[in-house]
């Protein structure tokens, strides 16, 4: 890859974010609308870096109560037992289904944490205008964007356990206060990934004026 590689922005062209039509705007500072689909034209996703930081920080804050607060409480005639995400994983492991325990551990604990770390890494790479390993970084972004939804797993587990186990007064399961926080982590990290513009990683190649556009 030579430094002379020509990007659309370098050539004065905008690729429409919706229909991907290449458009040559009459005025660079006011690109206007895409003539094909009518969407607003922008050189890069608007305020990409700031928005992504905001979602990442909000998600990181929610990550703590999501893991400390119980996500469900099992009530029987004699006892009431709260379960956090981790204790749910241990429960699955102890009852002999370690593959499911592993899946829940990966989807609920490791993917959200990994996404946050990876997004911070990408944001810092953009800030430092570092271009090393950009191919791998773009690939990392693609993975983050793809697997984020799987973290919603635990929310569905809680929902269907709660929906089925309502055999009052013998046994019932109620949702815990951790669920909304956990859901917030998943949604906020998905929004963070959608706000990030991977093209910013490559812009430093050309020292363009659009780096933070």
């Amino acid at each position, binding site marked *: *890859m030579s430094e002379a*590689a*020509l*990007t*659309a*922005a370098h050539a004065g*062209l905008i*690729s429409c974010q*919706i*229909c991907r*039509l*290449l458009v*040559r705007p*009459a005025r660079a500072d006011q*690109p*206007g609308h*895409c*003539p*094909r*689909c*009518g969407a607003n*034209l922008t050189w890069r996703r608007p305020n990409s870096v700031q928005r992504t930081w905001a979602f990442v920080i909000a998600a990181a804050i929610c990550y703590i109560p999501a893991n400390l607060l119980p996500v469900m409480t099992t009530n029987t005639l004699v006892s009431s037992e709260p379960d956090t995400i981790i204790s*749910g994983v241990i*429960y*699955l492991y102890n*009852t002999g289904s370690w593959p*499911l325990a592993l*899946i*829940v551990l990966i989807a609920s604990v490791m993917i959200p944490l990994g996404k946050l770390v990876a997004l911070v890494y990408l944001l810092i790479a953009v800030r430092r205008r570092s271009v090393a390993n*950009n*191919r791998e970084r*773009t*690939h990392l972004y*693609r993975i983050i964007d793809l697997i984020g*939804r*799987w973290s*919603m*797993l635990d*929310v*569905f*587990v*809680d*929902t*269907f*356990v*709660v*929906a*089925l*186990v*309502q*055999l009052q007064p013998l046994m019932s399961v*109620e*949702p815990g206060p951790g669920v*909304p926080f956990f*859901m917030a982590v998943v949604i906020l990290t998905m929004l963070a990934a*959608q706000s990030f513009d*991977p*093209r910013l990683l*490559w*812009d430093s190649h050309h020292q363009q004026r659009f780096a933070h556009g």
Partner: protein
Amino acid sequence: MTQVAGVETVACPACDLLQEVPPLAPGAKVRCVRCSETLAEALPDPLDRTLALTLAALVALIVANTMPLMGLEAVGRTASTTIIGGAQEMWLQGRELTAVVVAFCAVVSPSVYLLCMLFLLLAVRRAPAPHWTGQLLRWAESMQPWSMNEVMLLGILVALTRIATLARVIPGIGMYAVGALIVLLAAISVSFDRTEIWRRVEWVDERARRRGTSGTGVTQ
């Protein structure tokens, strides 16, 4: 830019590199030379096949949402639930927000996605397609990341495993329909070609189409 017939200039959506995509043989796929993002793909029969899959998926969606997912039997009592029943129970337990998000990801998103796909695939059968077809495609694509049926099915399996130690669980017809729905949704995303839709859609500004060289628009 000089244009060779059939060659289309595109900017990579992931790294913005300008590249020329030649006409593709069916089944061929073009990746960005710099970041390996998929730039173009020539799919066989992208519209009719996707339409057939969409119709099948709508049937599966209706069955999945009306039939019970699973039943439970413990100490002589039985209970069963549907997808929306799960969200409803969350609401009754005072977790309204969770209920809304579950209903959105499990029912609303896939329904809106499939309905938008159905109407847009019907609309593009005659070119030029009206420009609201593009709007339908935007809606469908904004729903796609939030439509989480496959995550839900895995969640149900984990839930069943957890309950299995407490009670006997019987999978219902809804569960098999969810399985079929997931396969069909995956098949739709593989067979669908969004570029083909945009090629057929009428431009908002038809004069710009004539002004620009092939595949390139100019704003005033």
